[in-house]
């Protein structure tokens, strides 16, 4: 806004006219008055930007007019025209807020300068006002923002599912949210600004946070840790916690601790484990039921054939049927033994034995079955493995299981062009283990099957497997402090290796 409208007040009409003409020619708009009273009225009605008034006027003089105008608008620019040497009036005028004064006779240049100054002042004031208003707005905005943020933070802290506790530099509690009250069992009113860290926490927990604060800036945030906190009312709560040490300009100002109550999570974890166990049991039972059903099919079929043999006095039928029954009775026996082995903790019974001999025994057992299925069995034994201290039963059963699996893998192989073979190797490894390697070139296993190899009741043999074989083998070997290793690829066969710790038998020197 440009200050353009000027009110000229003087009792001498000629002066008013001259000034008015002069100012108009400079581009100002002018209004005039010939007395203080008239000046005040014109001021009210015209709202000029600047007032130029003579001091000495009959009736209301310039000083009085100045006072009235300033009462209406204290910021209005009023320029006083004084007679030469009228110092007292000039001082009074300045005291009353006149913005400038010029001497009579009024010279155009002097007036122009005074007006410019007034205009500048108005402009500055307007700018200032604008700034101030802006500033006020900005301050209001910022205040609102801060209020919102602090409200938000307060809400955040209040509604957090984590317990949040903050201490100032004297270890006095300054923040203690409702979840913290829940966790520690102390009401906020008894804690906030009243308790210290030692009042609230058990010594162990308090020490962790105090030590952290001592470590300065190197470790401002603790990594999340799990712990059990003992509350004052004697509860034990599993928590995950972390803590931030707060510094301001390098000085310790306090710490904030966050606790996550793990009770629920632990409970859910337990439930999950439980449900997985139930699912495993379900799988176990259905796998087992399948296997038992197959035994039943064999027994029923066998007994029918035996019945026919008896009726017809047919020895062949009797033999065939009886074979079926015997085979399935053995399956029941093996299953029972596997189940017992799996369910019971068993200590290996160490005795002097010859691993190569045991391997030979097992090979003799399976040779016929392998042969009748077109599978060639070969062996390669390390004769340096002499007598060892080991549990022969573990070796026997584990090896028998692996070789039976190898035969099944050959029988199940879709590739009938292959010459199926199994090789059993014994050797010593670098880590002082004596090892049995059973290698077949049968169907091999895909990744999924491999992953479930040692799962209870997992079987890739349909109803023909109990799903206990490798499980039991794994358990036996583990109890013997050994390991089982598997290498396999679909279509490429599998290699299972049992490694047992080598313990040489001390030969006693009779002499």
């Amino acid at each position, binding site marked *: 806004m440009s200050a353009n409208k000027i009110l000229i007040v003087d009792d001498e009409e000629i002066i008013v006219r001259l000034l008015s003409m002069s100012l108009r020619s400079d581009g100002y708009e002018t209004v005039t008055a010939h007395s203080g009273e008239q000046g005040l009225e014109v001021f009210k009605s015209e709202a000029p930007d600047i007032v130029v008034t003579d001091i000495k006027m009959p009736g209301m003089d310039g000083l009085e007019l100045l006072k009235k105008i300033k009462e209406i608008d204290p910021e209005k620019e009023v320029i006083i025209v004084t007679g030469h040497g009228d110092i007292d009036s000039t001082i009074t005028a300045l005291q009353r807020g006149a913005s400038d004064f010029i001497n009579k006779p009024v010279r155009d240049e002097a007036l122009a300068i005074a007006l410019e100054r007034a205009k500048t002042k108005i402009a500055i004031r307007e700018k200032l006002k604008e700034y101030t208003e802006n500033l006020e707005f900005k301050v209001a905005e910022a205040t609102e923002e801060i209020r919102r943020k602090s409200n938000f933070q307060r809400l955040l802290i209040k509604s957090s599912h984590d317990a949040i506790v903050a201490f100032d530099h004297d270890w006095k509690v300054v923040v203690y949210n409702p979840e913290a009250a829940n966790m520690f069992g102390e009401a906020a009113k008894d804690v906030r600004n009243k308790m210290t860290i030692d009042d609230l926490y058990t010594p162990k927990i308090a020490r962790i946070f105090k030590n952290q604060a001592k470590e300065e800036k190197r470790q401002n945030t603790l990594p999340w840790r799990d712990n059990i906190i003992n509350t004052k009312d004697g509860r034990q709560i599993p928590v995950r916690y972390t803590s931030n040490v707060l510094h301001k300009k390098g000085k310790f100002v306090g710490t904030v601790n966050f606790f996550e109550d793990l009770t629920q999570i632990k409970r859910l974890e337990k439930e999950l484990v439980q449900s997985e166990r139930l699912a495993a049991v379900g799988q176990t039972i259905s796998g087992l039921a*399948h296997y038992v*059903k*197959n035994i*039943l*099919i*064999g027994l*029923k*079929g*066998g007994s*029918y*054939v035996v019945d*026919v043999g008896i009726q017809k006095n047919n020895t062949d*039928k009797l033999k*065939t*049927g009886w074979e*079926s029954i015997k*085979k*399935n009775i053995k399956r029941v026996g093996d299953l029972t033994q596997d189940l017992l082995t799996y369910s019971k903790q068993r200590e290996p019974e160490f005795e002097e034995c010859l691993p190569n001999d045991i391997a030979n025994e097992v090979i003799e057992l399976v040779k016929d079955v392998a042969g009748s299925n077109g599978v060639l069995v070969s062996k390669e034994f390390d004769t340096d493995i002499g007598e060892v201290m080991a549990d022969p039963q573990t070796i026997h059963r584990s090896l028998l299981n692996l070789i039976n699996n190898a035969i099944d893998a050959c*029988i*199940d*192989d*879709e590739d*009938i062009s292959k010459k199926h073979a199994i090789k059993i190797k014994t050797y010593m490894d670098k880590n002082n283990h004596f090892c049995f390697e059973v290698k077949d070139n049968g169907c091999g296993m895909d990744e999924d099957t491999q992953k479930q190899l040692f799962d209870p009741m997992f079987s890739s043999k*349909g*109803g*023909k497997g109990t799903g206990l074989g490798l499980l039991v083998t794994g358990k036996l070997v583990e109890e013997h402090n050994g390991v089982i290793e598997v290498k396999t690829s679909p279509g490429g066969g599998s290699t299972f290796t049992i490694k047992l710790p080598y313990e040489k038998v001390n030969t006693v020197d009779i002499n």
Partner: protein
Amino acid sequence: MSKKILVVDDDSDVRSFVVTVLEENQYIPLVAQDGVEGLEMIEKEQPDLIILDVLMPRGSGIRLYRKMKTDDNLKKIPIIMFTGIALRSFLKSQKVLDEFKGGEVPKPDIYLEKPVEPEELVAAIKKKLG
């Protein structure tokens, strides 16, 4: 003339049981141990009926069944499914194959879940062969 019936099953107990049942009822039994051997026998012997297991090594019953039902020369031969697995699982396997290979294979007429009594098996055979 006596009818020829082929038993395809990898379990020797099942084979001897079914063979005995067939002999007792004046049928001529033929045996095969797996799907591959089964198909060879079918082509060679042209049996009047097939008693087929599902889970076998080397060419399962799932595949042999499908092969029979899509072969113009073989689809007339009646099949009795004779297995330890549930019908639902068998149908599911065929449905997956239907989607995979296109076309649709008819469901088996007779599906017996082991174990069965000899009379049940004979009744099923008679129903098919008259």
